[in-house]
Structures are given as C-alpha cells and as structure tokens.
C-alpha cells in the first residue's frame, strides 16, 4: 500500500507540465548564478543582522536599564572587522532603548560572533534574575561584505581597482583616447570570459571566449595583451584574438608552446622608478597558492635579498602581474585568502616614504 502511494507520487511529480508550472510561478526567492560583480551595498547585510539581534534582545522579558556590552568577535577576524560589527550593534541597541554603559554594575550582555562554514552566527546572552536568556541570529557568510585590507605604509604604492568572486587570470589596462579602463580575463564556472570595465570599475562589456578544443585546467593560466581595440589572449595550448568592437568573432589557434608550461606569472616584469628612472624587477613569487604573498622588487644590478629590495605583502597569492604602458605601474591579480575574492591592484613605485 505504502509502495503504491509512493509510486503514484513519483508519477505525478514526474510530469513535466506540473513541474513547468511550479517552476514558472514558484521560483522567485533565491537564484544562484555565477556572479559578475560583488557587494552592491557592502553594509546592508551586516546592519540587517545587527538589527535582528537587537530586536530579539530588546524583546527579552524583564530586560531593563543600562547594559554592559561584552563583545567577543570571531577570533579569525581582523580588528577592524570586529570594530565594524561592534559599532553596528551599539547603534542598533541604542535605537531600541537598550543603552550600553561602561559601568561595572550594569547588567552584562555578552555578544559572541562566530563563523561556521556557511554562516556568521551572532549570539547574545544575558541573565535576568537566575534565568539565562540566549538569542541567536545568523547570516550567510556569502553575503557579508569584504574586509578592507589595512595597507601598511610601504614604498610600493598600491590601489585596489576591482574585485570579484570569479577567478581572475589576468588584467590589462585599456585606453581609448581620453578614456581609460580595465580588461579582465576570468575563468568563471569553467568558462573563459573577458570583461571590459570603465574607469569607475563598472562592467561595460562581457565577451565569452568560446575556445574550441580548450581542455579545462586545474591551474588555468591566461595572459591578455590589448592593442587598441584588439586583444590577444594567450591560454594553455591556444592563442585567441578578438576585438571589443566585434566580440562575437573570436579567432583561436593552437600553440605548440603552451603558456601552461610556464604556469607562473610574468616573472620579468619591471617597474620604473619615477625618482631616478631606474628599473625594479619582480624578483620572485608564486611559491605557495595557500599563503599571503610578499611581492619583492629588486633594482637592476642589485643582488637578491639586498637591502634595496622593496616589499609589500598582499592578502593572498599573486596570480598574475602585467606591466602597464611606459612601465611606471603594473596591474597585479591577487587572490584574497580572507574573502576568497580575486582582486586587481595597480602598483607603482613612489619616491620618498
């Protein structure tokens, strides 16, 4: 009997028409598609989570008077991330007439922030008489804003230009008369895509590079070289050309000498110092894809490890480097190990400091 009931359900569920109707009208709540940009409003998710916790705490029966907030941020977080959360929480508690006080005699309200594999969990605990009251809210980690990496003062100046959740293989400067922009080569969902960004970092063009015969790779490596509106893209075993003006026409040819064999970024990239026109070459890198990377530039003629080396630590491994025109600056692709995002930096040497 049970079995026949199950068969009947399966048969009903199997009807494509029923499913089609269900899907057409029912699926609206959440959609995953590979993302093309990140974090439109960086603080919204954080504020909303703090608001929900404050609301839940304010509703605890018998909770009155000033509260002594004991803040226990996630251990892995950098100080500024914990501070941002604390500021949000204080604001939301204040808004709900839960004044936070530093007085030792005030009732303690302990708030813990913990990261699980998928969520940030905020837990508030306080005691009303001999009763423990616990309130918990959670937010998916995937919607949380990235942390602004604090940049130590260095002689190598850097500027974060763009970040995205997809794997960036390379980035190159684009200039079209007075306008400047950025070309970004992505490996998204096992497909190659070239993005054109304007000077504000907005995507103005997306070109799927459907490269026939290109096998997926565990360590995809690509380099893009723009010449005006034409772009040459070197991949593992293939070289392709396309134009931003006619992106549907992507021409590819097989290459015997695959860039996959190099599989490391452009090691010989050099920057020119604005102070004395000397050239500084990237000396090493790419040794550990699981660690933060210290980029080292050595002036021509100096030996490795000399005190003249300029160093700058990035929040993850350097994936690629691409010198810009005139050699005064370069674009650096880095995987941020904290957020998992890929980031494009412009680096240049500055005099003094």
């Amino acid at each position, binding site marked *: 009997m049970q079995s026949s009931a199950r068969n009947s359900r399966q048969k009903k569920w199997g009807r494509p028409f029923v499913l089609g109707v269900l899907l057409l009208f029912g699926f609206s709540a959440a959609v995953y598609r590979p993302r093309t940009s990140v974090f439109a409003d960086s603080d919204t998710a954080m504020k909303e989570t703090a608001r929900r916790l404050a609301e839940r705490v304010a509703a605890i029966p018998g909770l009155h008077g000033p509260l002594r907030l004991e803040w226990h941020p996630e251990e892995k977080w950098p100080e500024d991330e914990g501070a941002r959360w604390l500021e949000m929480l204080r604001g939301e508690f204040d808004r709900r007439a839960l004044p936070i006080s530093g007085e030792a005699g005030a009732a303690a309200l302990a708030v813990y922030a913990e990261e699980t594999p998928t969520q940030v969990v905020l*837990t508030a605990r306080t005691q009303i008489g001999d009763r423990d009251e616990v309130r918990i809210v959670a937010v998916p980690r995937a919607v949380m804003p990235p942390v602004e990496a604090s940049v130590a003062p260095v002689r190598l100046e850097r500027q974060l230009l763009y970040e995205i959740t997809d794997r960036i293989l390379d980035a190159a400067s684009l200039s079209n008369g007075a306008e400047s922009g950025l070309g970004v080569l992505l490996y998204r969902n096992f497909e190659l895509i070239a993005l054109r960004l304007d000077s504000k970092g907005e995507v103005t063009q997306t070109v799927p590079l459907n490269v026939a015969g290109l096998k997926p790779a565990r360590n995809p490596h690509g380099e893009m070289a723009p010449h005006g509106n034409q772009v040459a893209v070197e991949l593992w075993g293939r070289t392709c050309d396309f134009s931003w003006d006619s992106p549907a026409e992507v021409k590819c040819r097989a290459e015997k000498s695959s860039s996959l064999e190099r599989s490391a970024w452009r090691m010989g990239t050099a920057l020119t110092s604005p102070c004395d026109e000397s050239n500084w070459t990237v000396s090493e890198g790419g040794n550990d894809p699981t660690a933060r990377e210290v980029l080292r530039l050595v002036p021509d003629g100096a030996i490795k490890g000399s005190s003249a080396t300029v160093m700058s630590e990035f929040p993850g491994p350097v994936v690629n480097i691409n010198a810009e025109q005139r050699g005064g600056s370069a674009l650096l692709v880095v995987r941020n190990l904290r957020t998992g995002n890929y980031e494009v930096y412009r680096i240049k040497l500055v005099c003094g400091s």
Partner: protein
Amino acid sequence: MRFTESSWFAAASSTLLALVCGTMLAASPRYGGTLHVKLRAISVSLDPREWKPGSFAAAENEKLAGLVYDRLVTLDDYGKFQPVLATEWTRDGSARNWQFKLRPGVHFSDRTTLTPGEVVAALQATLGRSFEIAAAENAINIHASRPAPDLLEQLASGRNFVFRVQPDGTLLGTGPFFVTESTAAAPVEGNPAALKPARIKFQANENCWAGRPFVDFVEVTLGEPALRLLFDLQVGKADIAEIAPDLVRKGRQEGLRIWSSAPQTLVALRFDDALSAPASDDLREALWLALDRDTMANVLLQREAQPATALLPQWLTGYALLFESPMDLQRARGLRAGFSAGVAGAEQPLRLRVDAPGDLFKLMGERVAVNARQANLLVQVATSSSANAPASAVGLRLFAWHYDSLSPRAELEMFLKQVTEGGELPPNTTDPEQLFTQEHRLLEERRILPLVFLPDYVGVRATVRNWNASAWGDWRLADVWLEPEAAGAAKVPGNTQKDSSTARNPGARP
C-alpha cells in the same frame, strides 16, 4: 684556460638564470607521479548508499569517494557555494522546491555522458524519501516534503555524490580519478600469520570535465597500524597518512608536517534506556558533574582534543560555547550520598562498554571510571571477556560520532536517529536559536554526556604541494601535486622515489 671578463659574465648570467628558473619551477604546479596515501581503515566502500552515518568508516569512505565522484555543489572556504555538476540553482520562497541546472558535456570515466536521470537516481538513493527528485531538460527538480533551506549544505557534504550504478553493481563517477586496481588484504606468502594490506589504486581521469588532476595515480593502502603510518611518513613510504590523535605529539616532535581539521569526532557517553528513566536522574546528573573533560583533552590526549560540552561542535553551529563545563565534584558527591540502595553506580557497579574501536577509547573509558570514583560512583569498564555480556548488564556506553554534514540540523537529526534510536528529532528549522534550544534540552536530559571533540589528523610530506584541505575534512586531492625529491634525499628501500621522479612539467601529458 684564462677566465676572461666576458666568460665570467656569461657564467654568472647563466647561474642567475638557473636560479630564476629554479624559482619558477618551484612555483609551477607539476603533473605526474603517484601519491601514496595510507589509512588505518581495514576496508573502504565506495558505494555511498552503504555508508552508516556518523561512523569512522563513512568518513574515510567519503574522503576516497571524493576522488571518484562529484557533487552538485561544493562549499568553498569562504562560505560560498560553488557550482560543480550544477551550474545554477534556484529555490522557491518555501525552500521546498529547488531546481538545479546541470553542467552540459560532463562524462563518466568510461566517456559516457551524464544524464539528469542518473543524477536523480543517485541523489534519490542518498537524500532519502523526504525528497522527491525528478529529471527535467538539462536539470533536476527537488521537492522536499518539508522546507529545506539547508539543502545546499546537505548536497555539499556527506554521501550526496553523483554516480551511476552499472549492471554489475559497481559504481561509476565523473570525478578526477577512477579505480584502476583493487586488491583485498591477503596472507603474506611464507608467513600466513601476517597480512598484506588491502590496496586501491586510482588513476587520473584524463577527460575530467574540471581538468585533469595533477598526479597520475593515487595509491591507497589500508589497514596500516597507527605507529607504522608515522614511520612510513618519516621514511617516505607514504605521502599522506592518517595520524592517530595520541601519536600527533610524537609526530610533531619528530618534525613531521601534521595537518588538523576542525573537530570532526565527538566522543561521548550514552546511558542505556533502563537508566534513562526519571528514577536514575540523580545518577546521570552525578556522573555529568564528575567528568573531568579538561584532563581528558589536555593530559590523556595531550592537548590534541577539545573538552566537549555540546553535541555539535562550535565550528558547525557557532553556539556551542554557550554550553559550559559543568564539573562540580562536591555536588556530584552530594547527589551520590542521597542514592537509595540498589541504584546502579552505588553498591552495584555501573558497567561501561566501549563501543568505539582502538586503545585510545578504552583509556578514555578507564578515565571515566576514575572520575566516577572521585564522586564515589562505581563504574566498571567492560573488559574484552565481558564484552559479550547481555545487553541488560551494560548501563553505559562510550561511543564516537564522526560528523558528516555541513548542515547542523541534518547532523543533529542523523545523530539522534542513530544514537538515541528514535529519540525526539530536532525542529524542522535551520534557525540556530531553535537548534540551540533543542540541543540544550537534550543535554539537560543527561542521557548523552559529551566528553571530547577530536580533529582528524593527517601527516603530509613536504613534497606534497598545494595541500589545501577544508576545515571539515575534504582533502581535495585532485588539486595536490608532487614536488620531486630534493637532490641527495635519503633513499629508502621501497621508497616512492621512482614514482615521484616521474613527475613532469604541466602540459607533458602521457
């Protein structure tokens, strides 16, 4: 021969070039070689339908199954679900109806194409009857009998792999490797008392949709004793080997590179049903108060474990820190003083059976008995001769539970189904506050007394590169590559030198 300035310059330049190239080579991933993996398990099953949730065996099976099968989605280290066999997914507002669009052009290792029907068949077998799964055009639809906002967590963990059952009953996958050889354990020739360990050899899937893995083969040896594994790592007979928690310190002292996961195993006590009755409330409470979890974690397990006061670990729920250590010997003794005659643990010893395998867990059982004695409670660890005593004679069991799921709700549900045999299931929600309330209530019953959380420990040789296992124990071996042995490295008989030296540069495919 006179060394001219120009020839000196040329020599210096070539040396510099060689140094730079050396650096570049070190930075480049390498294809080829055999990765030697050694495990303590005597046997493994690559059929996810057979795995028993919560068991050590299921955890080891899952690690190896990840070589052969893919999932619909995976979870990265940043809390984001990443597409694998599914390229897109949607769900409705009730979280009961989900649709997964399937990646086109995915092939099994025998080069046949993966179809939506095969995905349905595999997931229907692993997800169970509370999900109805149907094939659609290049997609599958999953209808849950109750809201399943944690479906992605479930699909990204546990046994929810995609596979095809062959007519002969074997399973095929779309993953980075396939099984090429499998030999069962057999008596050693000339010494029948000794066993030659079982071996499984996995070969790289050249046509894997996500790209060929770096190593050519993964050779897994099973059933190696714990101490032997440590030795094999030292002498280069293993590239990756499990390390028993009680040997981690020794391994570290000997300079081995040891990786640990987030706590993956709960070691706990469970009272039998007869002792779960209200009449035994004081006994359960007294033992709860007498347990010295800190000493177990810090002394017995040499700081390689964490005291456990919750059923689910902190890394999974985020709220386990709210369950504080309750040790209070004074109160335990006070409760014991009020016991009436005939209560187990007073005049008659409470029998403790160790259900988890290995000497370590026996030692923990003995430690429980010592703690109980400090509160004047009598606990006797069942010896091997008394292990077959009738079930009624056993009042307490020490067991280990290995976490399988990335969903706290699903994990708690599986735990309760298996451990309490039909106890109250968690609320149908992923709301952490409700899960906390449920777990709190369960712990208040004192039928299950958590002792310690244990991480998984793995020894990894320095020549294994890009070892980037997830905190929850996914080894990600397809992304690992082997660096050649350093010149002049000690050669050991039977070492893996021969295989490692076959490593090639990328692109040089066989």
